[in-house]
């Protein structure tokens, strides 16, 4: 029997602050529940210990500004490394599927990172996906984000990537952080439709969630035909979560997992640490092993006033029949945006230029700056050569680098060559990202 891999890393010695939701206590009761159940003794499971992620594993996904030493700390490398540990076990055929129950979470961390936002610094799931592409040559990966908050970080990282399908089901951005994830956000011109956002009204219950899954998510997956499905498994859709307003139960999470059949699930948010997490984590674990989770009962009575299915159905229909067309492919596609880092009170201003290339996903240039107030001056340049960069985009990238070097107008130039797996920061000197 192939086992389900479990990597439990509660980071009992790390927090974002004494009374912060991301504190030592967060997975304490989850530990109590799964250890007391004796899960680790069952033949269906195999436990793994996290290995540290390498600098390069992070560099492949993020531009850490002004340099990795300002951003990266050991807890991030353990959480990201833990997901990679499970990925290796999966790819080496040791396990059938796996659940990385790790802290800190990651899905609000974007392509450029100046600090922590939405409790996230390093995007574990994105690091994982890019690791699988580089290390194991996977071509098509789907990420299904079931955290109650829109995974704006993951969306940002793969927005122009035609080979990663990003689907997010979340509470409507008009009612919840981070205020994004509307149906019109569908991907860049070369990756149109590879981002699928399904905002749901506050109060959606199990039936609504499962309806969306069956009517939108599973068909989208079937059409995309990914080699691997990753679940960003946030648990804050639970009806007792203090930071959101959904009505999902532990059994609902079990059903979701059973239907989605993710190859790898990675914990994101979820802050009802006593009333939800122990039960939801257990339900996901059992569902992953094909075991019965009907016996899991939260101590609270199940929610009653959930949004009726009649309100969810038209919403699903409108997503299904969306008529918006992909933006035309121009020589350069440009985008401007401001990003706010709520945890650390940092403002980022960013302009992006993506080459409209027919031969590859296109060279990706990001001009970015940060400050303590809106509208900071751009001072860093990030040159991303995506997986499968074509020779002409590579040439253009090298030209851009040489020019930036000559003019010396940027504080940092970050060279992110995903295709050639070379990553360095240029700030007076070249600092290569290490492999070990």
């Amino acid at each position, binding site marked *: 029997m192939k086992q389900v891999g479990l990597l439990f890393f509660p980071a009992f010695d790390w927090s974002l602050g004494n*009374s912060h939701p991301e504190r*030592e206590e967060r997975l304490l009761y989850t530990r109590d529940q799964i250890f007391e159940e004796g899960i680790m003794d069952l033949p269906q499971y195999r436990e793994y*210990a996290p290995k540290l992620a390498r600098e390069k594993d992070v560099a492949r996904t993020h531009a850490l500004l002004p340099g990795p030493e300002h951003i990266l700390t050991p807890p991030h490398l353990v959480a990201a490394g833990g997901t990679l540990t499970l990925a290796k076990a999966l790819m080496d055929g040791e396990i059938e599927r796996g659940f990385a129950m790790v802290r800190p979470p990651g899905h609000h961390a974007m392509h450029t990172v100046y600090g922590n936002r939405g409790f996230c610094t390093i995007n574990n799931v994105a690091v994982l996906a890019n690791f699988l592409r580089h290390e194991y040559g996977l071509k098509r990966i789907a990420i299904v984000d079931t955290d109650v908050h829109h995974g704006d970080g993951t969306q940002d990282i793969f927005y122009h990537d035609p080979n990663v399908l990003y689907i997010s089901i979340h509470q409507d951005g008009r009612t919840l952080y981070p205020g994004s994830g509307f149906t019109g956000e569908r991907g860049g011109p070369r990756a149109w439709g590879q981002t699928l956002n399904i905002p749901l009204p506050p109060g959606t219950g199990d039936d609504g969630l499962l309806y969306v899954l069956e009517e939108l998510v599973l068909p989208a997956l079937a059409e995309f035909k990914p080699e691997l499905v990753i679940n960003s498994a946030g648990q804050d859709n639970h009806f007792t979560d203090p930071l959101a307003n959904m009505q999902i139960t532990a059994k609902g999470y079990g059903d979701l997992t059973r239907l989605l059949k993710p190859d790898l699930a990675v914990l994101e948010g979820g802050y009802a640490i006593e009333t939800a997490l122990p039960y939801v984590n257990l339900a996901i674990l059992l569902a992953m092993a094909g075991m019965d989770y009907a016996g899991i009962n939260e101590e609270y009575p199940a929610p009653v006033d959930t949004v009726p299915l009649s309100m969810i159905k038209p919403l699903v229909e409108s997503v299904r029949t969306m008529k918006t067309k992909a933006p035309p492919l121009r020589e350069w596609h440009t985008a401007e945006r401001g990003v706010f880092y709520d945890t650390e009170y940092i403002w980022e201003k960013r302009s992006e230029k993506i080459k409209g290339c027919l031969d590859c996903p296109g060279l990706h240039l990001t001009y970015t700056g940060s400050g303590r107030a809106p509208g900071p001056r751009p001072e860093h340049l990030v040159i991303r050569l995506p997986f499968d960069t074509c020779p002409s985009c590579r040439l253009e990238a090298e030209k851009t680098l040489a020019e930036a070097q000559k003019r010396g107008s940027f504080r940092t130039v970050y060279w992110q060559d995903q295709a050639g797996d070379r990553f360095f920061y240029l700030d007076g000197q070249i600092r290569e990202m290490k492999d070990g």
Partner: protein
Amino acid sequence: MLIGIDVGGTYTDGVAVNEEGEILAVAKYPTLRDNLLESLTGCLDQVMSGLSPLQVKRVSVSTTLLTNAVLQDKLEKTALLVIPGPGLDPTVLPFGVRPNVVAGAIDFRGRELAPVQPAQVKSLLMELIEAGHSGVAVAGKFAQRNNSHELKVESYALEHYPGLRVELSHRLCGSLNFPRRANTTYLTASSRTLFRHFLDQLEAGIRTRGITAPLYVLKADGGTLPLAAAARTPVETVYSGPAASVLGVLALLPEAETAVVMDIGGSTTDLGLILDGKPLLSSRGAEIGLFKTQVHSFAVTSANVGGDTPVEVVGGRINLGERRCGPAYCLGGSAPTPTDALRYLGLCEHGSLELAREGMESLASSLAVAPPEAARAVMEQVVERIATSFRQMVQCWEDEPAYRVWEVLHPHRMKRFKIFGVGGAAQGITPLVAEQLEAQWEAPEIGRVANALGAALAVPTFSCSLRADTGAGLYSIAETGVQLPWPNGRGGMEQARNLLSKHFRQRAWELGLTAAAGEITREEVFNVVRDSVTEGRIIEIGMELKAGVMTRVKGEERQ
């Protein structure tokens, strides 16, 4: 003078050693399968010949009684009653026997979610008694956080069915893992009478020999306990044999050494680890047949190969059998074995060289090679099996889960180590294994009775763990099941330490131990925050009296 006796599968070994670490006598006595008592006293007589019983300060024994009773199903008829509450379907949980499920539920913070149903418990107990059970083991999920349900079941039982043996899980062990706690409770309940009876006989046997010194029993965690204390928790005495060998090696090594203990027996080779002078404990607990338990034990891995493993040629290759079929060919057995290969190669002196040659020649002719080559091929296979088990054991230790950032940044890594071979064929096999693993080695003659030496010199061990939930206003001691209100006060961790010390001393006294100095081995504290207000703390600390030896064996004795 300290006496140690270890009852093994084939031999019962005995040692007398004085407090300065000088060995006074050793004995090897054949184990009588159906009469452990006779094996023990027979061995004791051999050790004591020429020594005065009045000089004896302590007798420690390690026995296979409990392991045998479980594996041969000689336990008393006992029912397992569980209170699983919501969660996993109890029928898939790894209980060693069929569980009888009753209603009731407690959550992880000890809150009652659903009450016990007296009528259901009563009628179930009636059924169980009618089915011939004389005892019942009761285990509730999270009973270590709130024992009220288990206590209620006990009180119904005592009220309505006096005479029924009742064992409650929270009084025996308190670590998280409900199925293991249930199994431990079941084994305790079903073996206590049997074990008590054996110990009574043993005590009588030893007293009639004029020995008035206290008697101790060795446990799986390499510690000893006075007879009376051991009798209460017989399950802790499983696998004390391998533990005894590890301790014996500890007594033969210089301080703070790192070594792999390789105990080569007839049918298996047991591997244990000593890291910087501390034997490695299993992270979860001993497994006895179908029963995964919470019994603390040394992490001992068994390689399925020993001196008597039958060897044959299959498909032009040497093939090692899966189980022992009798002694080596050179000792009158029916099939060639690794012992024959060693004998033939001149690496050991037991048995007839003539027969060993015959055995190797038969293998050699099937392989169409010269006999020495066949013997070497046998040993290559043996070494490979041991080395594979060794690598798995080290891997397992290096891969032990980590739950804190600090642990991941300070991973377990095996550094330079020595292989210490003990047991019958150790002197022949150890150098070969050491060569394969590129390690130093040692296999002194005295290693033949390392197990008995370990028993003789083992110090007492026990642990005491406190968990406080100051918000809920409660604390509990895992090992004894004590659950008490948390005294008001702002002491936090300091107060927890003081309370733990008190309970530790109390437990030492109950176990019949004096002057026990515990070591704090674990301290964790979690702020319990609700709505941005710190409501209290969850504090978990553990104190242990760790395994070790009273004295080390003197250098000249080790030759």
